[in-house]
């Protein structure tokens, strides 16, 4: 019973200067989970924007058939009226409004007086929350929820709109493993209820676990649609479609020969900036030259907080503990002092904390080490260009010019700009926080290669990652962090995903 709910035929969408989609055809069966994957910039999001009316009818060529009827959506309201709801990668909830207010935002049920009937709304919201397995009071402000729960609120909101085709753009990108698993279970449950789902994802293990079919998009074209039920489709098979080649290995090989200790922290304790609790407690760790050390922890374990507090105390208050760089105790009280001591921190959120998106590649690369390019406060603009050009070559940053605005680059290239910026500070130790989040498979491989090159050059690297295979593939040694405490340390040869996960969830309820 291959009943097609959605058909997109010959979709072509051009922006000034670029063809984002070219003659894309997509067919989605009723009641299936249909995955769409492809490298960043392949056109996945554009295709979904065409489908949901963000790019209105008339701004593209081709036709959309929903339930066999041709559709012309002029905006997102049109598509939602037909039961097509999109949940974007960046969640679109209003932080200070309650769960119920968010669910019915723009869709408020008015009582007889014309005012909103909040009792009805809250009761209705509670039912919706129950159906997505979220046990929270509907009057709770959304800001008090974690990202995983916010994602569930978004889905509840979609359900309130009588969704028939749910589109999820990278739903698990910001979620930890447990929340991701929960979300995938929910999608299966929705499928049981007859809701069709389109899911854009970079996480191939999730796709192979949950999708009924997978459409691969490359360079604006739909390359192939794989039937996940009949074929034995592997991750390698999908990757081949995405990049047009086989990646022999996700993680490039590396000779490991750690040298002397570069960074060590002892008894490191950090308090939350406003709440009265310890976010990091009594942490000790060390990293040696030419070594990659991983920090594994669930969301909320204090990984980023630990890294940022070490990096010039840029997070938290009442920080205590000792910090040693090359065996010498240092006080890095400001970011500038941390940089001077050879510490670099590459943030997990490059758009918010890593880049000046409205400025060009050149000035972003030099931003953290302008003093290396200046004399008596005057910047040598020509040297700056030279440095930026060198970074562009070495990092393979794909841009027309170093004068190009960073905000226009793809995620992977933006990440290379951030890395370039920190390498230009000539650090001894790099702390990489989720270095491959939200970037495509090809760029991930490039980032891994860059990390290996740094380590070969004698730098010490700390990698924080939510993806355990990444830690297992890249690191020499892995620490596990749970509720702000180190719960384990092991060489990578002894570590497995299971053993790490066990340590990552250890003692959580005791401290929580």
């Amino acid at each position, binding site marked *: 019973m291959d009943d097609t709910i959605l058909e997109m035929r010959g979709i072509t969408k051009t922006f000034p200067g*670029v063809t984002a989609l070219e003659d894309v055809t997509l067919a989605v069966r009723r009641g299936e989970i249909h995955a769409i994957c492809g490298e960043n910039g392949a056109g996945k999001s554009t295709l979904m924007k065409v489908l949901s009316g963000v790019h209105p009818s008339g701004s593209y060529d081709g036709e959309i058939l929903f339930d066999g009827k041709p559709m012309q959506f002029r905006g997102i309201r049109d598509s939602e009226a037909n039961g097509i709801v999109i949940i974007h990668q960046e969640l679109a909830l209003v932080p200070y409004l309650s769960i119920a207010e968010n669910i019915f935002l723009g869709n408020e049920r008015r009582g007889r007086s014309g005012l909103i009937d909040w009792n009805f709304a809250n009761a209705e919201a509670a039912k919706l929350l129950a159906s997505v397995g979220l046990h929270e009071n509907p009057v709770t402000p959304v800001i008090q929820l974690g990202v995983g729960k916010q994602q569930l609120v978004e889905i509840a909101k979609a359900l309130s709109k009588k969704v028939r085709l749910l589109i999820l753009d990278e739903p698990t990108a910001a979620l930890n493993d447990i929340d991701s698993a929960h979300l995938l279970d929910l999608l299966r449950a929705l499928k049981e209820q007859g809701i069709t789902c389109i899911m854009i994802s970079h996480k191939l293990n999730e796709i192979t676990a949950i999708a009924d079919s997978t459409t691969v998009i490359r360079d604006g074209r739909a390359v192939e649609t794989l039937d996940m039920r009949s074929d034995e489709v592997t991750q390698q098979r999908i990757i081949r479609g995405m990049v047009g080649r086989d990646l022999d290995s996700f993680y490039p090989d590396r000779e490991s020969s750690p040298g002397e200790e570069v960074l060590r922290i002892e008894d490191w304790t950090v308090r939350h900036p406003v709440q009265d609790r310890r976010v990091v407690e009594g942490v000790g760790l060390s990293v040696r030259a030419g070594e990659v050390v991983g920090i594994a922890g669930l969301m909320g374990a204090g990984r980023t907080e630990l890294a940022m507090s070490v990096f010039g105390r840029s997070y938290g208050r009442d920080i205590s503990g000792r910090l040693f760089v090359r065996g010498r105790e240092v006080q890095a009280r400001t970011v500038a002092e941390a940089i001077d001591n050879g510490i670099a921190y590459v943030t997990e959120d490059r758009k918010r904390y890593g880049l*000046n998106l*409205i*400025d060009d590649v050149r*000035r972003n690369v030099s931003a953290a080490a302008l003093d290396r390019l200046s004399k008596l406060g005057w910047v040598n603009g*020509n040297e700056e260009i030279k440095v930026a050009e060198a970074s562009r070559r070495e990092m393979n940053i*794909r841009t027309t010019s170093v004068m190009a605005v960073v905000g226009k680059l793809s995620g992977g290239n933006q990440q290379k700009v951030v890395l370039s910026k920190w390498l230009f500070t000539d650090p001894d130790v790099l702390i990489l926080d989720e270095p491959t989040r939200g970037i495509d498979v090809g760029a991930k491989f490039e980032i891994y290669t860059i990390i290996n090159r740094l380590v070969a050059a004698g730098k010490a690297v700390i990698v924080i990652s939510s993806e355990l295979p990444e830690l297992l593939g890249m690191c020499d040694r892995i620490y596990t962090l749970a509720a702000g405490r180190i719960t384990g340390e092991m060489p990578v040869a002894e570590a497995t995903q299971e053993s790490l996960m066990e340590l990552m969830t250890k003692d959580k309820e005791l401290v929580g």
Partner: protein
Amino acid sequence: MTSIKTPSTERPTPPDSTPAAALHSGTSDLRALVLNNLRQSGIYVALVVIVGLFAILTDGVLLSPGNITNIVLQYSYILVLAIGMVILIIGGHIDLSVGSVVALTGAVSAVLVIQQGYPWWVGVLAALAVGVAVGAWHGFWVAYAGIPAFIVTLAGMLLFRGLTLRVLDNISLSPFPSEYQQVAAGFLNGLLGGNGFDAFTLLIGAVAVAGYAVSGFRTRVARIRYQQPVESFPLFVARVVVVGAVIMYFAWQLAHARGLPIVLIILAVLVLIYGLLTRRTVFGRQVYAIGGNLSAAALSGVKVRTVNFWMFVNMGFLAAVAGVIYSSRSNGAQPAAGNMFELDAIAAAFIGGAAVTGGVGTVVGAMVGGLIMAVMSNGMQLMGIDQSTQSVVKGLVLLVAVAFDVYNKRRAGTAR
């Protein structure tokens, strides 16, 4: 992944470091150059159109030697304020108090020089010191206490207006001694003699043109050496010729009137210094970085508080310079001096391409924005249009300028 475009500009290979290379490389694609700099070139075009329009509407009176001199004298203090304002706006702040600070610094100067009989330079130094102190006050609250600049300077607007009334005891003071009046009303004239025109003014104009050409050429040579795209040599020459012609025309007109206004020299020096400060110094870069993305700047080791503090100190200093010029021009101090100056300065910055969200803007842009306002006001005054219509027109121009900017930004994604 969109395809990788090959750079459209030709590159000399191997890299040629001789100045001769500057003669035969670069792009002549005028359309691309204009489009790439639409935001900047847009306001130059607007200025030319507005000058042309009012020159016709006023039968050429707008461009008469006497009137050009007048525009310079009349709007110099707004332009000085606009320099400080655009730097604050780039950094993501605003200053609503500058009108009051102009009044206060002028009042302090007037009290010392007119009432107490101190020499003129004591008044000037005291005014500058008061301006710096006011700036430090604002800087403290914004940078170290973390209060938004809008609130701090709104409070400052009331506070320093009140102090002005207190200092002046609610009366106007005048006149200043003649040396003090020279600041805004003085001219350098006849230093090299002249026959109906001032040769010295022409000489300064010629020096400015030469400086522009030489520095432009040096930048060009350096860019080529670092293999960066440049405009083609004929285009470069055309640019220098056009700018040179405008400067020399301007100098010629001034030379036929009263010579080189002292206030124009002050303004030119400030524009030069602050133009370099914003583009070429670490401080300037950090201002852009803070305005573009505060968190990223802080995590890159920028001392955000220090930079914010000095931005406000600088604004206070420039407000005091404007205060001295204004008190000199009006030959005294009045309790209501400088009213609404902040709005003119803010408008100049925004018309000149600064972004409301920070991180974008240039000193030269703010000057052009200020000149657009100045020429419009002056032109409408010459035509005898009443105050109410003038205000309506200026308001609409501000709105259209920012709307154009927003439209432009949306079209281009993001751009400086």
